[in-house]
């Protein structure tokens, strides 16, 4: 197992390096010049040239790449060319927000998806099942930014219960304020995510409920509750964990849009802003981080399998 994890970690380093390099060159292939973008209405060819020289963007690509990569190895992600902050600084302020948002969205998704999925599976082809299917269908089809705007209109503008925008620091402003600010954006992301998970919980449970060992458990006279929770659900969750891992992408891409709607400057909004501004160091730094998160999340998913199903071994 340790060997397996080690091997996977070494693979991961190469994947991340490849990803970072690809982003470095792809970014420079897409049209749009950061200097022209930065100067905006103040653009003159002379000002553009002076700024390009100042930022080192007039140097050959390979020189820029080597310098950037050397800096990364020293742990220096560089400074944003669009704003004065460092990339590490921006990530340090943005990451806790995105993680808070992702965690709460995930929690909301699980809290909705598991009971709803179980109920739909147990009450198969009843009104409960159909209702859950319809809700899930709507949840999947609804773009998170649209749902976010609706939530703002209902809960912030009309009812006035919750704030429409912004983020509160857990440490400075306390748990209640933090939650008040996060609940709507988390719901906006979590709803779609819950819908997908719920379908998998239902399908997984239905499949397992028809299997031999469940019939055996029942034949032995085990209580229905024990059969469902101890025997069925645990096995039904394996595909769900896979999906949950893959759908981490959904959480992050949801964050990109929802952070903009709710004016939370997390990783997603930083990344989108940086792409629009052609802020090369910032895009590279954030993508590097996202790549690390993805690779690690997939590793964690693989490890979690072994706990859920003792038959899975990594040699």
């Amino acid at each position, binding site marked *: 197992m340790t060997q397996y994890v080690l091997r996977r970690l070494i693979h991961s380093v190469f994947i991340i390096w490849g990803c970072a390099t690809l982003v470095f060159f792809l970014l420079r292939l897409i049209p749009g010049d950061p200097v022209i973008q930065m100067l905006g209405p103040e653009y003159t060819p002379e000002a553009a040239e002076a700024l390009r020289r100042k930022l080192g963007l007039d140097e050959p690509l390979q020189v820029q790449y080597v310098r950037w990569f050397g800096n990364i190895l020293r742990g220096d992600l560089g400074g944003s060319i669009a704003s004065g902050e460092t990339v590490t600084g921006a990530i340090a302020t943005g990451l806790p927000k995105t993680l808070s948002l992702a965690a709460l969205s995930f929690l909301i998704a699980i809290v909705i998806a598991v009971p709803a999925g179980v109920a739909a599976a147990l009450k198969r082809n009843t009104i409960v099942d159909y209702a859950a299917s319809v809700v899930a269908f709507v949840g999947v089809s609804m773009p998170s930014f649209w749902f976010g705007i609706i939530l703002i209109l209902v809960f912030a503008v009309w009812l006035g219960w919750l704030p429409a925008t912004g983020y509160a620091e857990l440490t400075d402003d306390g748990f209640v304020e933090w939650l008040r600010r996060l609940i709507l954006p988390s719901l906006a992301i979590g709803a779609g995510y819950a819908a997908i998970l719920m379908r998998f919980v239902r399908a997984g449970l239905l499949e397992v409920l028809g299997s031999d060992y469940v019939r055996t458990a029942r034949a032995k006279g085990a209580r229905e509750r024990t059969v469902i929770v101890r025997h069925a659900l645990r096995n039904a969750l394996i595909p769900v964990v896979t999906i949950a891992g893959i759908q981490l992408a959904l959480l992050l891409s949801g964050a990109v849009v929802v952070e903009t709607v709710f004016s939370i400057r997390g990783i997603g909004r930083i990344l989108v*802003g940086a792409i629009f501004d052609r802020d090369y160091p910032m895009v590279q730094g954030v993508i590097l981080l996202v790549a690390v998160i993805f690779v690690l999340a997939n590793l964690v998913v693989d490890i979690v399998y072994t706990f859920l199903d003792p038959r899975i071994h990594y040699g």
Partner: protein
Amino acid sequence: MTTVDWSVLSGPRVSRRTLIGLAAATGAVGFAGRLAATAAAPRAVLGTIQDQPKQGGTLRLGFGISQIPTLDPAQETTGIVAGELLGNLFSSLVQFDEQLGLKPDLAETWQVSEDGLHYTFTLREGLTFHNGDTLTSEDVRYTYERTSNPDFASPHANKLAFITDVATPDERTVAITLGTPYAPFLSTACSRGPGRALTPVPRRPIEEMGDQQFGLTPVGSGPFMLVPETANTGGEGFEMIAFEGWYGGRPLLDKIVVQIIPEPSSRLSALEAGDVDMLDIVPPTGSAQLAQNPDLTLVDAPGTNWWGVSFNRARAPWDNPDARMAVAKAVDRQALIDTAFFGLGVPSVGPIAPAFGWAYVPPEEVETPQAFDLAAAKALAERAGLTGAKSSLLASEDDRPHQVLRNILAEIGLDLTIDKVQTATYFERRDAGDYDTMITGSVVDADPDDGHFNFFHSEGPWNTYGYVSEEADRLIEATREATDPTERAKLFRELQTLLQAEVPFAFLFHQPDQTAFHTDVQGYVPIPEMRYLETVWLDR
């Protein structure tokens, strides 16, 4: 050309009254009458100004931008950040009044020599920066040297290119010499907000923290000072508190929290939900919605912008003047404004923006060959082979005016596709002249020079569509060297007539500068494109 005395630009005020007097004296009676009429026109209701202002409180300002790259005046490039945020953090030599005339800021008076080459500013006594450092003529000279240093690469260095010498005979006197007269100098280089090139910055903190950090935690001399712990880090916003040592006395508010809300619909919701007290600018699509809310006040100031369709003359059929004129005549401006902006805007007959009252002439008083005439447009289109032709319209974010224009031009048989790209690509293609047509224009101008030279002079940086006219060049240069505002206004109008006829642009509309706040926000004085907030107070 009559020779008029440049020294009329001297302060403590360059007022409308001076302009009216000059206009009358030089026989521009219609112009004087119009100025007098606009002065008498009813103004926006700004709450109950007769109430006793209250001191204290925090104003939360919702600000629509994806991020604020820097708050260093010399490095900042976004017009709304300059006018609306820097103007509160930094005082400058002069500032704008409600008609975009000039009045004293850090300089108590200023003299302009008759030949327009010598500007002598007398600073107020006892000025300090937010950190307590005294502000003297030496700081103005330091600012000049910093901004114009080629290694620093300030985008505003070009506004100082006319300067040949900055002398500081004593602590309160700054004597600036220009190599050639440059009429927009005070507005574009020395004004509070847009005049970023010469907005005084302190040497000591900049040397201690470096240029980059100064953009995050700037030290200015304006009515509000940045709270360093809330340093602007791009997309988050920041806080400003009242500066007790401001020459004009402590502002009324205790604090201003600038909250960045990039998404227009979220900005509207934040105002309606009470997350913020005021919006920097009302997104045009939300104006009608906010107007219905009794808890909100909407205030309009005339805009300093103009918008139009530009035609790339390097590409057929736009080298043909008939084709360009056909487009110009095909557009019912008011219908376009009603459809694309829910009626928010003024039809445009040229690049003189309504906020520059001293030069602007309302559209109904202007005869232009570009006026809407569908029958004539169809005839011209037919003649120019525009009927059934295909072309594209380069666009970035806002789709509405593009869609509307596309539909309008289908009337004359032109098949216009919208070539929608990201902003970065948009600017790059604009600067490379890689487009057929585009809706573009000049925004947040401190002086009409910005919206004329850049677009219509053969060397203008945004003249990427191939408009070369000796007559236009001559007139633009003349406006820069013009002897007095009346003469300047005349030249701008002459230029406008030329541009209407030669159709480098089909001029479309001007947008008002609209802001909105909760009714308990009082004392706001609307100055086009500025948000000087020292007079604002909260009735709570």
